[in-house]
């Protein structure tokens, strides 16, 4: 039990350290750049204005909001303090909406879309990879190149392809959005049905993209395990092949949990871009509109939230893995 506590302690410590690093980076990167973000923003806001004092006014207001007139270290503490209060500033493009407000209305869509999609893609990919490794021969020969090709279709490419085929050409799915545009979110059946039908295309495009890579990883992992000594030994004790295959897949699948933890950052990146294609009301689209409108506070906040999401998921996967794989237990807990 002491070993467990040590393992968790270590993981939590790492989580906190990376979190702090992420916050610092999020704060410092834009400020390291030669161009002063406030003047850039003011320039955009004030384009078309002729009154110099009005421009000056705008500049002062944003300078105060960002605190860029204070020393860097003081700015950082203001930034952190605001962060703790959930205050992420005010959006430029959707003035006077609070950034935290915009984010909180988008984050649910993203989590409900991407988490299940990535998990389903991961599961399906592993099952296919295991089958390919076990059956080999024709199945392997057909499936592997297909999986390899599929895993190289960029997420946005898959999104566009599905969109064009199912929504534009065959018209069996809606083109854009998270629900029908003439509806107001509520708890009715009609709304729920609309949400589900809008969910399909983004969901499956993420699933399809993640299957390939996982299948390939699982396949080589399984082949490696199938050649392991314990397979031979179990066979010589008269254990049925089907049972042994069970051992192999369990052992091959467990490291795939870590694989998922390591690739989740990249996967979410692709999936966010896929959101834009479907105008899905999640963080990806929020970020896109923030970039096009040069809404600095919103960009900064979305990147921070996405980082935190990835950190949390990675942390959880690490913890789960520690529980389910006795190999980690032996290596980490007793050390």
């Amino acid at each position: 039990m002491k070993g467990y506590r040590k393992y968790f302690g270590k993981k939590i410590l790492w989580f906190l350290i990376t979190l702090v690093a992420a916050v610092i980076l999020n704060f410092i990167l834009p400020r390291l750049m030669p161009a002063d973000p406030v003047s850039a923003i003011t320039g955009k806001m004030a384009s078309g204005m002729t009154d110099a004092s009005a421009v000056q006014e705008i500049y002062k207001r944003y300078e105060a909001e960002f605190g860029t007139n204070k020393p860097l270290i003081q700015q950082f503490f203001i930034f952190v303090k605001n962060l703790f209060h959930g205050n992420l500033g005010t959006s430029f493009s959707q003035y006077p909406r609070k950034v935290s407000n915009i984010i909180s209305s988008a984050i649910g869509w993203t989590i409900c879309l991407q988490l299940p999609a990535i998990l389903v893609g991961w599961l399906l990919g592993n099952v296919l990879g295991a089958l390919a490794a076990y059956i080999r021969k024709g199945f392997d020969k057909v499936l592997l190149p297909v999986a390899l090709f599929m895993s190289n279709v960029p997420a946005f490419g898959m999104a566009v392809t599905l969109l064009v085929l199912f929504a534009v050409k065959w018209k069996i799915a809606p083109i854009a959005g998270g629900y029908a545009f003439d509806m107001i979110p509520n708890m009715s059946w009609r709304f729920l049905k609309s949400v589900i039908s809008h969910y399909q295309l983004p969901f499956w495009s993420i699933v399809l993209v993640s299957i390939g890579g996982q299948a390939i990883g699982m396949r080589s992992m399984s082949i490696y395990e199938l050649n392991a000594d314990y397979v031979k030994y179990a066979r010589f004790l008269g254990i049925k092949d089907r049972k042994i295959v069970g051992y192999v897949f369990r052992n091959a699948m467990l490291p795939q949990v870590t694989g998922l933890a390591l690739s989740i950052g990249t996967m979410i990146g692709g999936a966010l871009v896929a959101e834009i294609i479907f105008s899905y009301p999640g963080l990806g689209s929020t970020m896109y509109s923030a970039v096009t409108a040069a809404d600095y506070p919103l960009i900064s906040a979305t990147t921070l939230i996405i980082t935190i999401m990835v950190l949390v998921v990675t942390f959880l996967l690490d913890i789960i893995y520690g529980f389910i794989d006795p190999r980690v237990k032996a290596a980490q807990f007793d050390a």
Partner: protein
Amino acid sequence: MKNTLRQVFHSSKFLVGFIIFALILLTVWLYPLLINPGNPLEMIGVGTFAKPGTYVSLYDAVNTRTETLRLPDADDKRVAYLLSDADRVAMIEWFGIMDIDVSELDATDTDALLDLWFENYDPAIKPKGMTQARRNFFKRLDKSIRQIRSADTLKVMHPEEDELVERSSITKTDYVNVGDVANVKLLPLGTDNFGRDVLKELVSATGTSIVIGLIAGVVATLIGLTLGLLAGYVGGLVDDVIMFITNIFTVIPSFVLLILISYSIGQEQRGASVVALVIGFTSWTWTARSVRSQVISLRNRDHVNLSKLSGHSLVRIIVTDILPYIASYVVMAFILQVSSGILSEAQLSLLGLGPKTTVTPTLGLMMNWAMLYSAHTNGSWWAYFPVILTITLISFSLNLMNTGLDQVFNPTLRD
């Protein structure tokens, strides 16, 4: 070395990947040189999204010598082309009003549609509940249908002084040879939203994107290799510090850093090479980690110890005793980084954070333009689908090569 290369090219996966990639490179190099030189961003069209195909100058065609051909199905084809979908729907609507069973009728079967129309349309009928305006609409429709069928000629007028004088007329049986027309333009992939030749742009964009991938790959590999070598070989505090940083950057998603940095640089400063550098700077962590672990396992091998005892310098030991052993690995990591660099550029551009839009096209920018102008919802597949296919093929070929190399260098994975 020679033996290794032979082994590598014996791997069918590597070979297929290599051939695809080489063909892409060859196209990028030869197409603008031999087939279609000039500025890829030149706006040759004024409208948006011209369909792929061969374009014949109408003006020149009119002035080209004609030949008379009596093709039996010419009339039908012409009618079928001119009868719009809306017209067909309206005709079927009329049949519905006249209580004619249209369940068997195929709206694309022009002949059957017209036969039924001439049988059943009578301008004198006044269906109940139909407004005058609608009745007039059907009258006009009938007239235009009959006009299509009639054997009119087109008059070519010659502006002379104050009045138009007929110069010649074009009958329906006049044909010109495409080879005789002075201006014919082949646009295999049509034009994009700005009226630019998509194929020409695509070839140029592929080149730029591959360069971006290469720069990003070189930068990432150099940083990763240096840090990995230092951490692995020197060890101790240096190792701890480097690994601390590497671990942090492994968990923080690199595309978030990419977005932050790209946004901070600003649109004006973002050339293709700057974007490539930024991508390289955010994707070195994997190389660093794995180079480190490989170096640690090499560090205490006999030949390295021997070099150390002989008093060779750090640089020499690394270059002669360590690098050759991790070279295959570094090459594989580099290939993967090139492919992910190309993908990163595309994703950044889709977010609107790609390279400056006016200098060179990249695959990501083409995709971004196509999406901005709704190519995907208005049916202009040629503006985005070739781009997706190109990105997929490049990264597919690179990954195939990588899998092939992996099988050669990691025999446990062989089948």
